[in-house]
Protein backbone atom coordinates (compact mmCIF):
# COMPACT_ATOMS: atom_id res chain seq x y z
CA UNK A 1 0.00 0.00 0.00
CA UNK A 2 2.65 2.46 1.08
CA UNK A 3 4.74 1.49 -1.94
CA UNK A 4 2.08 2.38 -4.46
CA UNK A 5 1.34 5.78 -2.91
CA UNK A 6 5.00 6.75 -3.06
CA UNK A 7 5.13 5.67 -6.71
CA UNK A 8 2.10 7.74 -7.60
CA UNK A 9 3.45 10.73 -5.73
CA UNK A 10 6.70 10.52 -7.68
CA UNK A 11 4.72 10.20 -10.91
CA UNK A 12 2.60 13.12 -9.77
CA UNK A 13 5.62 15.23 -9.06
CA UNK A 14 6.99 14.42 -12.49
CA UNK A 15 3.71 15.42 -14.12
CA UNK A 16 3.73 18.61 -12.10
CA UNK A 17 7.26 19.45 -13.16
CA UNK A 18 6.43 18.69 -16.78
CA UNK A 19 3.48 21.03 -16.61
CA UNK A 20 5.55 23.71 -14.96
CA UNK A 21 8.19 23.35 -17.70
CA UNK A 22 5.52 23.61 -20.34
CA UNK A 23 4.05 26.74 -18.80
CA UNK A 24 7.46 28.27 -18.53
CA UNK A 25 8.20 27.31 -22.13
CA UNK A 26 5.12 29.09 -23.42
CA UNK A 27 5.30 32.02 -21.05
CA UNK A 28 8.65 32.87 -22.64
CA UNK A 29 7.71 31.58 -26.07
CA UNK A 30 4.63 33.68 -26.71
CA UNK A 31 6.14 37.09 -25.94
CA UNK A 32 9.28 36.20 -27.89
CA UNK A 33 7.26 35.14 -30.89
CA UNK A 34 5.32 38.41 -30.73
CA UNK A 35 8.61 40.28 -30.53
CA UNK A 36 9.94 38.35 -33.53
CA UNK A 37 6.87 39.25 -35.55
CA UNK A 38 7.30 42.93 -34.68
CA UNK A 39 10.94 42.58 -35.70
CA UNK A 40 9.88 41.19 -39.06
CA UNK A 41 7.12 43.77 -39.59
CA UNK A 42 9.16 45.75 -42.15
CA UNK A 43 9.24 42.63 -44.33
CA UNK A 44 5.49 42.17 -43.98
CA UNK A 45 5.10 45.77 -45.06
CA UNK A 46 7.45 45.17 -47.98
CA UNK A 47 5.44 42.18 -49.22
CA UNK A 48 2.12 43.90 -48.62
CA UNK A 49 3.20 47.02 -50.52
CA UNK A 50 4.62 44.96 -53.37
CA UNK A 51 1.04 43.77 -54.00
CA UNK A 52 -0.52 47.24 -54.13
CA UNK A 53 -0.72 49.94 -56.77
CA UNK A 54 1.37 52.96 -55.77
CA UNK A 55 -1.65 55.09 -54.86
CA UNK A 56 -2.63 52.61 -52.16
CA UNK A 57 0.84 52.18 -50.67
CA UNK A 58 0.35 54.88 -48.07
CA UNK A 59 -3.40 54.60 -47.69
CA UNK A 60 -4.66 55.11 -44.14
CA UNK A 61 -5.48 52.88 -42.39
CA UNK A 62 -2.82 50.48 -43.58
CA UNK A 63 -4.29 47.44 -45.29
CA UNK A 64 -1.93 44.56 -44.45
CA UNK A 65 -3.57 42.03 -46.74
CA UNK A 66 -4.53 43.78 -49.99
CA UNK A 67 -8.13 42.89 -50.89
CA UNK A 68 -7.30 42.26 -54.52
CA UNK A 69 -3.53 41.73 -54.82
CA UNK A 70 -1.97 43.75 -57.58
CA UNK A 71 0.38 41.24 -59.20
CA UNK A 72 1.04 43.76 -61.94
CA UNK A 73 4.01 45.10 -59.92
CA UNK A 74 5.75 41.77 -60.27
CA UNK A 75 5.13 41.37 -63.99
CA UNK A 76 6.26 44.96 -64.53
CA UNK A 77 9.40 44.47 -62.46
CA UNK A 78 10.22 41.16 -64.13
CA UNK A 79 9.33 41.87 -67.74
CA UNK A 80 8.85 45.63 -67.96
CA UNK A 81 11.17 48.38 -69.07
CA UNK A 82 13.78 48.12 -66.30
CA UNK A 83 13.50 44.36 -66.02
CA UNK A 84 15.07 43.14 -62.80
CA UNK A 85 16.06 39.95 -64.61
CA UNK A 86 19.13 41.65 -66.09
CA UNK A 87 20.61 42.75 -62.76
CA UNK A 88 19.49 39.45 -61.31
CA UNK A 89 21.47 37.60 -63.99
CA UNK A 90 24.47 39.87 -63.39
CA UNK A 91 24.32 39.18 -59.67
CA UNK A 92 24.14 35.43 -60.24
CA UNK A 93 27.08 35.63 -62.63
CA UNK A 94 29.21 37.73 -60.25
CA UNK A 95 28.35 35.58 -57.24
CA UNK A 96 29.08 32.31 -59.07
CA UNK A 97 32.47 33.42 -60.36
CA UNK A 98 33.44 34.97 -57.04
CA UNK A 99 32.54 31.83 -55.13
CA UNK A 100 34.36 29.62 -57.62
CA UNK A 101 37.46 31.82 -57.68
CA UNK A 102 37.48 32.36 -53.93
CA UNK A 103 37.17 28.66 -53.15
CA UNK A 104 39.97 27.76 -55.56
CA UNK A 105 42.51 30.36 -54.49
CA UNK A 106 41.66 30.33 -50.78
CA UNK A 107 41.82 26.55 -50.35
CA UNK A 108 45.13 26.31 -52.22
CA UNK A 109 46.73 29.19 -50.34
CA UNK A 110 45.22 28.25 -46.98
CA UNK A 111 46.52 24.72 -47.39
CA UNK A 112 50.01 25.93 -48.31
CA UNK A 113 50.18 28.26 -45.29
CA UNK A 114 49.07 25.43 -43.03
CA UNK A 115 50.71 22.32 -44.38
CA UNK A 116 53.57 23.10 -46.79
CA UNK A 117 56.94 24.40 -45.68
CA UNK A 118 58.60 26.80 -48.05
CA UNK A 119 61.07 29.65 -47.73
CA UNK A 120 59.37 33.00 -47.22
CA UNK A 121 56.16 31.51 -45.90
CA UNK A 122 56.34 33.38 -42.60
CA UNK A 123 57.05 36.70 -44.29
CA UNK A 124 54.18 36.35 -46.76
CA UNK A 125 51.86 35.36 -43.95
CA UNK A 126 52.77 38.42 -41.93
CA UNK A 127 52.05 40.48 -45.04
CA UNK A 128 48.62 38.86 -45.25
CA UNK A 129 47.94 39.59 -41.59
CA UNK A 130 48.81 43.23 -42.14
CA UNK A 131 46.53 43.64 -45.16
CA UNK A 132 43.64 41.79 -43.54
CA UNK A 133 42.73 44.88 -41.55
CA UNK A 134 42.60 47.22 -44.54
CA UNK A 135 38.98 48.18 -45.29
CA UNK A 136 37.94 47.93 -48.94
CA UNK A 137 36.71 51.51 -48.70
CA UNK A 138 40.26 52.79 -48.45
CA UNK A 139 41.19 51.06 -51.71
CA UNK A 140 38.29 52.37 -53.80
CA UNK A 141 40.18 55.31 -55.31
CA UNK A 142 43.25 53.44 -56.58
CA UNK A 143 41.10 50.54 -57.77
CA UNK A 144 38.87 53.02 -59.60
CA UNK A 145 41.90 54.51 -61.36
CA UNK A 146 43.42 51.16 -62.28
CA UNK A 147 40.14 49.73 -63.49
CA UNK A 148 39.70 52.72 -65.76
CA UNK A 149 43.19 52.25 -67.18
CA UNK A 150 42.67 48.51 -67.63
CA UNK A 151 39.22 48.99 -69.19
CA UNK A 152 37.67 47.00 -66.36
CA UNK A 153 35.64 49.98 -65.17
CA UNK A 154 31.92 49.48 -65.76
CA UNK A 155 32.34 45.75 -66.34
CA UNK A 156 31.36 42.94 -64.00
CA UNK A 157 35.04 42.01 -63.74
CA UNK A 158 35.54 45.07 -61.52
CA UNK A 159 33.39 43.25 -58.95
CA UNK A 160 34.50 39.70 -59.67
CA UNK A 161 38.28 40.01 -59.72
CA UNK A 162 38.91 41.65 -56.32
CA UNK A 163 36.34 39.27 -54.82
CA UNK A 164 38.19 36.18 -55.97
CA UNK A 165 41.34 36.70 -53.93
CA UNK A 166 40.56 37.49 -50.35
CA UNK A 167 42.80 37.38 -47.34
CA UNK A 168 39.93 36.48 -45.02
CA UNK A 169 39.02 33.38 -47.04
CA UNK A 170 42.63 32.25 -46.96
CA UNK A 171 42.73 32.71 -43.19
CA UNK A 172 39.58 30.66 -42.70
CA UNK A 173 40.92 27.80 -44.81
CA UNK A 174 44.34 27.94 -43.20
CA UNK A 175 42.77 27.80 -39.76
CA UNK A 176 40.93 24.69 -40.81
CA UNK A 177 43.90 22.90 -42.39
CA UNK A 178 46.11 23.70 -39.38
CA UNK A 179 43.74 21.62 -37.25
CA UNK A 180 44.17 18.60 -39.55
CA UNK A 181 46.76 15.92 -38.68
CA UNK A 182 50.14 16.00 -40.39
CA UNK A 183 50.44 12.21 -40.61
CA UNK A 184 48.20 11.81 -43.66
CA UNK A 185 50.54 13.88 -45.78
CA UNK A 186 53.68 12.20 -44.46
CA UNK A 187 52.32 8.74 -45.13
CA UNK A 188 51.14 9.69 -48.60
CA UNK A 189 54.48 11.28 -49.44
CA UNK A 190 56.29 8.08 -48.50
CA UNK A 191 53.91 6.29 -50.85
CA UNK A 192 55.04 8.65 -53.59
CA UNK A 193 51.91 10.77 -53.91
CA UNK A 194 52.41 14.20 -55.44
CA UNK A 195 51.63 17.31 -53.41
CA UNK A 196 48.59 18.17 -55.50
CA UNK A 197 47.28 14.63 -55.03
CA UNK A 198 47.74 14.83 -51.27
CA UNK A 199 45.88 18.13 -51.26
CA UNK A 200 43.03 17.18 -53.56
CA UNK A 201 42.49 13.54 -52.51
CA UNK A 202 43.16 13.64 -48.78
CA UNK A 203 42.78 17.09 -47.25
CA UNK A 204 40.25 18.71 -49.57
CA UNK A 205 37.45 16.14 -49.12
CA UNK A 206 37.80 16.45 -45.34
CA UNK A 207 37.51 20.21 -45.56
CA UNK A 208 34.06 20.22 -47.15
CA UNK A 209 32.25 21.71 -44.10
CA UNK A 210 34.64 24.67 -44.06
CA UNK A 211 34.53 25.01 -47.85
CA UNK A 212 30.75 25.17 -47.87
CA UNK A 213 30.87 27.73 -45.07
CA UNK A 214 33.25 29.87 -47.12
CA UNK A 215 31.03 29.45 -50.19
CA UNK A 216 28.01 30.68 -48.26
CA UNK A 217 29.90 33.65 -46.83
CA UNK A 218 31.24 34.64 -50.24
CA UNK A 219 27.78 34.33 -51.76
CA UNK A 220 26.26 36.59 -49.12
CA UNK A 221 29.00 39.22 -49.47
CA UNK A 222 28.67 39.18 -53.22
CA UNK A 223 24.89 39.17 -53.39
CA UNK A 224 24.44 42.06 -50.97
CA UNK A 225 27.36 44.24 -52.06
CA UNK A 226 26.17 47.74 -52.86
CA UNK A 227 29.22 49.93 -52.40
CA UNK A 228 31.51 48.36 -55.01
CA UNK A 229 28.98 48.42 -57.87
CA UNK A 230 28.00 51.96 -56.92
CA UNK A 231 31.57 53.08 -57.56
CA UNK A 232 32.62 50.80 -60.39
CA UNK A 233 29.49 50.46 -62.53
CA UNK A 234 27.76 53.17 -64.51
CA UNK A 235 25.53 51.65 -67.21
CA UNK A 236 22.24 50.08 -66.07
CA UNK A 237 22.80 46.95 -68.19
CA UNK A 238 25.78 46.13 -65.96
CA UNK A 239 24.07 46.78 -62.64
CA UNK A 240 23.87 44.05 -60.04
CA UNK A 241 20.70 43.59 -58.00
CA UNK A 242 21.18 46.11 -55.16
CA UNK A 243 21.72 48.84 -57.75
CA UNK A 244 18.95 47.56 -59.99
CA UNK A 245 16.52 47.95 -57.10
CA UNK A 246 16.95 51.71 -57.15
CA UNK A 247 15.84 52.12 -60.77
CA UNK A 248 12.09 52.07 -60.16
CA UNK A 249 10.86 55.65 -60.01
CA UNK A 250 7.63 57.41 -60.87
CA UNK A 251 7.30 60.29 -63.35
CA UNK A 252 8.54 62.76 -60.70
CA UNK A 253 11.70 60.75 -60.13
CA UNK A 254 10.51 59.65 -56.68
CA UNK A 255 10.74 56.03 -55.61
CA UNK A 256 7.81 53.97 -56.93
CA UNK A 257 6.75 52.13 -53.79
CA UNK A 258 5.00 49.10 -55.26
CA UNK A 259 7.60 48.37 -57.92
CA UNK A 260 10.56 48.94 -55.60
CA UNK A 261 9.09 46.62 -52.99
CA UNK A 262 8.29 43.93 -55.57
CA UNK A 263 11.89 44.10 -56.80
CA UNK A 264 13.14 44.00 -53.19
CA UNK A 265 11.13 40.87 -52.48
CA UNK A 266 12.64 39.21 -55.55
CA UNK A 267 16.16 40.23 -54.46
CA UNK A 268 15.67 38.65 -51.03
CA UNK A 269 14.33 35.28 -52.18
CA UNK A 270 17.67 33.68 -53.19
CA UNK A 271 19.49 34.67 -50.01
CA UNK A 272 16.54 33.52 -47.90
CA UNK A 273 16.49 30.18 -49.71
CA UNK A 274 20.21 29.67 -49.12
CA UNK A 275 19.67 30.60 -45.48
CA UNK A 276 16.72 28.27 -44.93
CA UNK A 277 18.19 25.30 -46.81
CA UNK A 278 21.67 25.55 -45.31
CA UNK A 279 20.64 27.12 -42.02
CA UNK A 280 22.97 25.07 -39.88
CA UNK A 281 25.98 25.56 -42.18
CA UNK A 282 25.02 29.19 -42.59
CA UNK A 283 25.08 29.84 -38.86
CA UNK A 284 28.32 27.90 -38.54
CA UNK A 285 29.82 30.01 -41.32
CA UNK A 286 28.90 33.21 -39.50
CA UNK A 287 30.17 32.10 -36.12
CA UNK A 288 33.31 30.46 -37.46
CA UNK A 289 34.34 33.51 -39.45
CA UNK A 290 33.67 35.51 -36.30
CA UNK A 291 35.57 33.42 -33.80
CA UNK A 292 38.66 32.73 -35.87
Amino acid at each position, binding site marked *: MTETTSVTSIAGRHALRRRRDRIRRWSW*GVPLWILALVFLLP*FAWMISTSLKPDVQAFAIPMQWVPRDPHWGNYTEVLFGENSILIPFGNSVCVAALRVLGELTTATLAGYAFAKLRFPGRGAVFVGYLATSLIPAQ*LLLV*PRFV*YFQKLSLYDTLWALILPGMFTVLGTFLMRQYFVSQPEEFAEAARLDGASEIQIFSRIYLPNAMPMISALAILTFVWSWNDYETP*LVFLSTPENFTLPMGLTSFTDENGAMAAGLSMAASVIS*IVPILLVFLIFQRRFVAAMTESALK
Partner: protein
Amino acid sequence: MSTTQTSPAPVGTRPAPSARRRTGRAPSDPKPFVGWLFIAPNLLGVVAFTFIPLISVILLSFTQWNLVSGFGGIKFVGLANFIAVFQDPTFWRSLLITIVYAGVAVPLTLVVGLALALALNRDLPARGLLRAAFFVPYIVNIVAIGMTWQMLLDPSAGLVNQFLGLFGLEHLPQWFASSHWALPALILVTIWAQAGYANLIFLSALQDAPTQLYEAARIDGAGRWASFRAITWPSLLPTTIFLLVTLFVGISQTFGMIALITGGGPGESTTTLSFYMYQTSFQFYRFGYASAVGLVTFIGIFAIMLLMWRAQRGKALHD
Protein backbone atom coordinates in the same frame (compact mmCIF):
# COMPACT_ATOMS: atom_id res chain seq x y z
CA MET B 1 68.50 24.48 -48.66
CA SER B 2 69.97 21.26 -50.01
CA THR B 3 73.19 21.78 -48.02
CA THR B 4 71.33 22.14 -44.74
CA GLN B 5 69.41 19.04 -45.59
CA THR B 6 72.46 16.84 -46.11
CA SER B 7 74.67 18.29 -43.38
CA PRO B 8 74.26 16.30 -40.17
CA ALA B 9 72.68 17.91 -37.16
CA PRO B 10 75.24 19.11 -34.59
CA VAL B 11 76.02 16.02 -32.56
CA GLY B 12 74.89 15.94 -28.97
CA THR B 13 73.17 19.32 -28.97
CA ARG B 14 69.72 18.27 -30.03
CA PRO B 15 67.90 15.09 -30.88
CA ALA B 16 66.92 14.45 -34.46
CA PRO B 17 63.27 15.65 -34.49
CA SER B 18 64.06 19.18 -33.38
CA ALA B 19 66.94 19.33 -35.82
CA ARG B 20 64.44 18.50 -38.49
CA ARG B 21 62.18 21.24 -37.36
CA ARG B 22 65.07 23.65 -37.42
CA THR B 23 66.16 22.90 -40.94
CA GLY B 24 62.53 22.83 -41.97
CA ARG B 25 62.65 19.78 -44.23
CA ALA B 26 62.52 16.04 -43.85
CA PRO B 27 63.67 13.84 -46.74
CA SER B 28 60.05 13.29 -47.77
CA ASP B 29 59.12 16.98 -47.58
CA PRO B 30 57.87 18.72 -50.71
CA LYS B 31 60.18 20.88 -52.75
CA PRO B 32 60.16 24.52 -51.68
CA PHE B 33 58.67 25.89 -54.89
CA VAL B 34 55.55 23.71 -54.49
CA GLY B 35 54.34 25.90 -51.63
CA TRP B 36 54.82 28.98 -53.76
CA LEU B 37 52.82 27.38 -56.58
CA PHE B 38 49.97 26.75 -54.15
CA ILE B 39 49.80 30.30 -52.86
CA ALA B 40 50.58 31.92 -56.23
CA PRO B 41 47.00 32.41 -57.52
CA ASN B 42 45.82 33.99 -54.28
CA LEU B 43 49.01 35.94 -53.72
CA LEU B 44 49.01 37.46 -57.21
CA GLY B 45 45.40 38.56 -56.73
CA VAL B 46 46.04 39.99 -53.28
CA VAL B 47 49.10 41.86 -54.55
CA ALA B 48 47.21 43.21 -57.58
CA PHE B 49 43.94 44.17 -55.89
CA THR B 50 44.96 44.93 -52.33
CA PHE B 51 48.67 45.50 -51.92
CA ILE B 52 49.32 47.72 -54.97
CA PRO B 53 46.18 49.81 -54.33
CA LEU B 54 47.27 50.20 -50.71
CA ILE B 55 50.72 51.50 -51.71
CA SER B 56 49.00 53.72 -54.28
CA VAL B 57 46.62 55.24 -51.77
CA ILE B 58 49.54 56.07 -49.49
CA LEU B 59 51.44 57.69 -52.37
CA LEU B 60 48.34 59.50 -53.59
CA SER B 61 47.79 61.04 -50.19
CA PHE B 62 50.93 63.14 -50.74
CA THR B 63 49.70 64.47 -54.07
CA GLN B 64 47.13 66.77 -55.52
CA TRP B 65 45.25 65.15 -58.35
CA ASN B 66 41.92 64.97 -60.05
CA LEU B 67 41.27 62.32 -62.65
CA VAL B 68 40.54 64.83 -65.42
CA SER B 69 44.15 66.01 -65.60
CA GLY B 70 45.44 62.49 -66.36
CA PHE B 71 48.49 60.89 -64.79
CA GLY B 72 50.61 63.84 -65.94
CA GLY B 73 48.58 66.10 -63.69
CA ILE B 74 49.67 64.42 -60.47
CA LYS B 75 51.41 67.01 -58.33
CA PHE B 76 53.46 66.14 -55.25
CA VAL B 77 52.38 68.37 -52.38
CA GLY B 78 54.09 66.78 -49.37
CA LEU B 79 52.04 66.86 -46.22
CA ALA B 80 49.67 69.55 -47.50
CA ASN B 81 46.71 67.16 -47.73
CA PHE B 82 47.15 65.99 -44.16
CA ILE B 83 47.45 69.55 -42.90
CA ALA B 84 44.33 70.43 -44.87
CA VAL B 85 42.47 67.45 -43.39
CA PHE B 86 43.12 68.65 -39.87
CA GLN B 87 41.99 72.17 -40.79
CA ASP B 88 38.88 70.98 -42.59
CA PRO B 89 35.73 71.74 -40.55
CA THR B 90 33.73 69.14 -42.54
CA PHE B 91 36.28 66.49 -41.58
CA TRP B 92 35.91 67.26 -37.87
CA ARG B 93 32.15 67.40 -38.19
CA SER B 94 32.13 64.03 -39.96
CA LEU B 95 34.39 62.62 -37.27
CA LEU B 96 32.00 63.81 -34.57
CA ILE B 97 29.00 62.36 -36.44
CA THR B 98 30.82 59.05 -36.89
CA ILE B 99 31.68 58.91 -33.19
CA VAL B 100 28.12 59.69 -32.14
CA TYR B 101 26.69 57.23 -34.66
CA ALA B 102 28.98 54.33 -33.78
CA GLY B 103 29.13 55.32 -30.11
CA VAL B 104 25.37 54.94 -29.76
CA ALA B 105 24.64 52.19 -32.29
CA VAL B 106 27.38 49.76 -31.22
CA PRO B 107 26.56 49.49 -27.47
CA LEU B 108 22.83 49.34 -28.18
CA THR B 109 23.31 46.62 -30.79
CA LEU B 110 25.35 44.69 -28.22
CA VAL B 111 22.72 45.09 -25.50
CA VAL B 112 19.83 44.09 -27.78
CA GLY B 113 21.82 41.15 -29.14
CA LEU B 114 22.75 39.95 -25.65
CA ALA B 115 19.22 40.34 -24.27
CA LEU B 116 17.82 38.39 -27.20
CA ALA B 117 20.47 35.69 -26.82
CA LEU B 118 19.74 35.24 -23.11
CA ALA B 119 16.02 35.04 -23.84
CA LEU B 120 16.45 32.63 -26.74
CA ASN B 121 18.91 30.37 -24.91
CA ARG B 122 16.19 28.23 -23.33
CA ASP B 123 13.59 25.69 -24.29
CA LEU B 124 11.12 27.47 -26.56
CA PRO B 125 8.40 26.47 -28.99
CA ALA B 126 9.88 26.29 -32.55
CA ARG B 127 13.15 27.62 -31.22
CA GLY B 128 15.13 27.21 -34.43
CA LEU B 129 12.66 29.25 -36.43
CA LEU B 130 12.44 31.85 -33.70
CA ARG B 131 16.21 32.29 -33.68
CA ALA B 132 16.27 32.49 -37.47
CA ALA B 133 13.62 35.23 -37.46
CA PHE B 134 15.85 37.69 -35.62
CA PHE B 135 18.71 36.98 -37.98
CA VAL B 136 16.87 37.69 -41.23
CA PRO B 137 17.44 41.49 -41.35
CA TYR B 138 21.20 40.89 -41.23
CA ILE B 139 21.29 38.86 -44.43
CA VAL B 140 19.06 41.11 -46.54
CA ASN B 141 20.73 43.58 -48.89
CA ILE B 142 20.94 47.13 -47.62
CA VAL B 143 19.01 48.61 -50.56
CA ALA B 144 15.86 46.58 -49.92
CA ILE B 145 16.13 47.38 -46.21
CA GLY B 146 16.92 51.03 -46.77
CA MET B 147 14.05 51.65 -49.19
CA THR B 148 11.59 49.92 -46.87
CA TRP B 149 12.64 51.89 -43.80
CA GLN B 150 12.69 55.10 -45.77
CA MET B 151 8.98 54.60 -46.44
CA LEU B 152 8.18 53.26 -42.97
CA LEU B 153 9.80 56.36 -41.48
CA ASP B 154 8.14 58.80 -43.85
CA PRO B 155 7.27 61.78 -41.59
CA SER B 156 3.60 62.03 -42.61
CA ALA B 157 2.49 58.84 -44.34
CA GLY B 158 4.95 56.34 -42.81
CA LEU B 159 3.70 53.51 -40.67
CA VAL B 160 5.91 54.41 -37.69
CA ASN B 161 4.57 57.92 -37.33
CA GLN B 162 1.03 56.67 -37.95
CA PHE B 163 1.54 54.40 -34.99
CA LEU B 164 3.09 57.11 -32.81
CA GLY B 165 0.20 59.38 -33.79
CA LEU B 166 -2.21 56.95 -32.14
CA PHE B 167 -0.85 58.05 -28.78
CA GLY B 168 -1.74 61.62 -29.56
CA LEU B 169 1.90 62.67 -29.72
CA GLU B 170 2.46 66.08 -31.20
CA HIS B 171 5.68 67.04 -32.95
CA LEU B 172 6.28 63.59 -34.33
CA PRO B 173 9.92 62.90 -35.21
CA GLN B 174 10.63 63.88 -38.80
CA TRP B 175 13.21 61.08 -39.21
CA PHE B 176 15.20 61.25 -42.42
CA ALA B 177 13.59 64.56 -43.36
CA SER B 178 15.07 66.44 -40.41
CA SER B 179 18.68 67.17 -39.58
CA HIS B 180 17.93 66.41 -35.91
CA TRP B 181 16.26 63.08 -36.48
CA ALA B 182 18.16 61.64 -39.45
CA LEU B 183 21.02 60.30 -37.32
CA PRO B 184 18.72 58.69 -34.72
CA ALA B 185 16.76 57.12 -37.59
CA LEU B 186 19.98 55.76 -39.04
CA ILE B 187 20.95 54.39 -35.63
CA LEU B 188 17.56 52.74 -35.25
CA VAL B 189 17.79 50.96 -38.60
CA THR B 190 21.40 49.97 -37.91
CA ILE B 191 20.50 48.34 -34.60
CA TRP B 192 17.58 46.54 -36.21
CA ALA B 193 19.82 45.20 -38.98
CA GLN B 194 22.84 44.26 -36.82
CA ALA B 195 21.28 42.94 -33.61
CA GLY B 196 20.63 39.55 -35.22
CA TYR B 197 24.33 39.11 -35.86
CA ALA B 198 25.30 40.00 -32.28
CA ASN B 199 22.53 37.69 -31.08
CA LEU B 200 23.88 34.80 -33.16
CA ILE B 201 27.44 35.20 -31.90
CA PHE B 202 26.27 35.54 -28.28
CA LEU B 203 24.08 32.45 -28.62
CA SER B 204 26.99 30.35 -29.82
CA ALA B 205 29.09 31.65 -26.93
CA LEU B 206 26.32 30.85 -24.42
CA GLN B 207 26.33 27.27 -25.61
CA ASP B 208 29.96 27.03 -24.47
CA ALA B 209 29.16 28.46 -21.04
CA PRO B 210 30.15 26.09 -18.21
CA THR B 211 26.77 24.48 -17.36
CA GLN B 212 28.00 22.47 -14.41
CA LEU B 213 28.83 25.74 -12.64
CA TYR B 214 25.18 26.79 -12.75
CA GLU B 215 24.23 23.66 -10.78
CA ALA B 216 26.91 24.43 -8.22
CA ALA B 217 25.78 28.03 -7.98
CA ARG B 218 22.18 26.98 -7.44
CA ILE B 219 23.15 24.59 -4.72
CA ASP B 220 25.06 27.43 -3.08
CA GLY B 221 21.84 29.42 -3.17
CA ALA B 222 22.90 31.94 -5.79
CA GLY B 223 20.05 33.81 -7.46
CA ARG B 224 19.67 34.32 -11.15
CA TRP B 225 21.36 37.71 -11.21
CA ALA B 226 24.21 36.47 -9.05
CA SER B 227 24.90 33.50 -11.28
CA PHE B 228 24.67 35.70 -14.39
CA ARG B 229 27.29 38.02 -12.94
CA ALA B 230 29.53 35.29 -11.60
CA ILE B 231 29.33 32.73 -14.41
CA THR B 232 27.60 33.90 -17.58
CA TRP B 233 29.08 37.35 -17.88
CA PRO B 234 32.74 36.36 -17.40
CA SER B 235 32.35 33.58 -19.94
CA LEU B 236 30.81 36.04 -22.40
CA LEU B 237 33.40 38.74 -21.91
CA PRO B 238 35.78 37.70 -24.73
CA THR B 239 32.83 37.44 -27.11
CA THR B 240 31.59 40.86 -26.03
CA ILE B 241 34.96 42.44 -26.67
CA PHE B 242 35.19 40.69 -30.02
CA LEU B 243 31.75 41.97 -31.02
CA LEU B 244 32.54 45.42 -29.71
CA VAL B 245 35.56 45.60 -32.00
CA THR B 246 33.96 44.07 -35.11
CA LEU B 247 30.72 46.01 -34.75
CA PHE B 248 32.67 49.19 -34.21
CA VAL B 249 34.79 48.61 -37.30
CA GLY B 250 31.77 47.62 -39.37
CA ILE B 251 29.35 50.29 -38.18
CA SER B 252 31.85 53.12 -38.32
CA GLN B 253 32.24 52.26 -42.02
CA THR B 254 28.51 52.20 -42.77
CA PHE B 255 28.13 53.61 -46.20
CA GLY B 256 25.41 51.97 -48.28
CA MET B 257 22.49 53.10 -46.17
CA ILE B 258 23.75 56.68 -46.01
CA ALA B 259 24.40 56.86 -49.74
CA LEU B 260 20.99 55.38 -50.46
CA ILE B 261 18.72 57.16 -47.99
CA THR B 262 20.19 60.45 -46.87
CA GLY B 263 23.08 61.26 -49.19
CA GLY B 264 24.81 62.58 -46.08
CA GLY B 265 22.01 65.02 -45.27
CA PRO B 266 19.82 66.78 -44.50
CA GLY B 267 22.51 69.44 -44.33
CA GLU B 268 25.54 67.43 -43.31
CA SER B 269 23.76 65.69 -40.46
CA THR B 270 24.58 62.14 -41.60
CA THR B 271 27.88 62.77 -43.36
CA THR B 272 30.04 60.22 -41.60
CA LEU B 273 33.74 59.90 -42.37
CA SER B 274 33.24 57.07 -44.83
CA PHE B 275 30.59 59.02 -46.69
CA TYR B 276 32.76 62.13 -46.67
CA MET B 277 35.56 60.07 -48.16
CA TYR B 278 33.21 58.87 -50.89
CA GLN B 279 32.09 62.42 -51.60
CA THR B 280 35.60 63.80 -51.88
CA SER B 281 36.62 60.95 -54.17
CA PHE B 282 33.67 60.30 -56.41
CA GLN B 283 31.63 63.48 -56.31
CA PHE B 284 34.43 66.04 -56.16
CA TYR B 285 37.16 63.81 -57.65
CA ARG B 286 39.81 65.13 -55.27
CA PHE B 287 41.73 61.86 -55.23
CA GLY B 288 44.79 63.05 -53.33
CA TYR B 289 42.76 64.69 -50.58
CA ALA B 290 40.33 61.75 -50.40
CA SER B 291 43.27 59.38 -49.92
CA ALA B 292 44.52 61.47 -47.01
CA VAL B 293 41.04 61.51 -45.43
CA GLY B 294 40.86 57.73 -45.88
CA LEU B 295 44.27 57.10 -44.34
CA VAL B 296 43.64 59.35 -41.34
CA THR B 297 40.28 57.65 -40.82
CA PHE B 298 41.73 54.18 -41.08
CA ILE B 299 44.58 54.95 -38.71
CA GLY B 300 42.06 56.39 -36.25
CA ILE B 301 39.83 53.32 -36.36
CA PHE B 302 42.86 51.08 -36.11
CA ALA B 303 44.09 52.95 -33.02
CA ILE B 304 40.70 52.63 -31.32
CA MET B 305 40.66 48.93 -32.18
CA LEU B 306 44.09 48.45 -30.59
CA LEU B 307 42.93 50.31 -27.48
CA MET B 308 39.93 47.99 -27.17
CA TRP B 309 42.14 44.91 -27.43
CA ARG B 310 44.54 46.38 -24.89
CA ALA B 311 41.65 47.08 -22.54
CA GLN B 312 40.53 43.49 -22.89
CA ARG B 313 44.03 42.17 -22.18
CA GLY B 314 44.28 44.39 -19.12
CA LYS B 315 40.91 43.14 -17.96
CA ALA B 316 41.91 39.51 -18.48
CA LEU B 317 45.10 40.00 -16.46
CA HIS B 318 43.14 41.74 -13.75
CA ASP B 319 40.71 38.85 -13.34
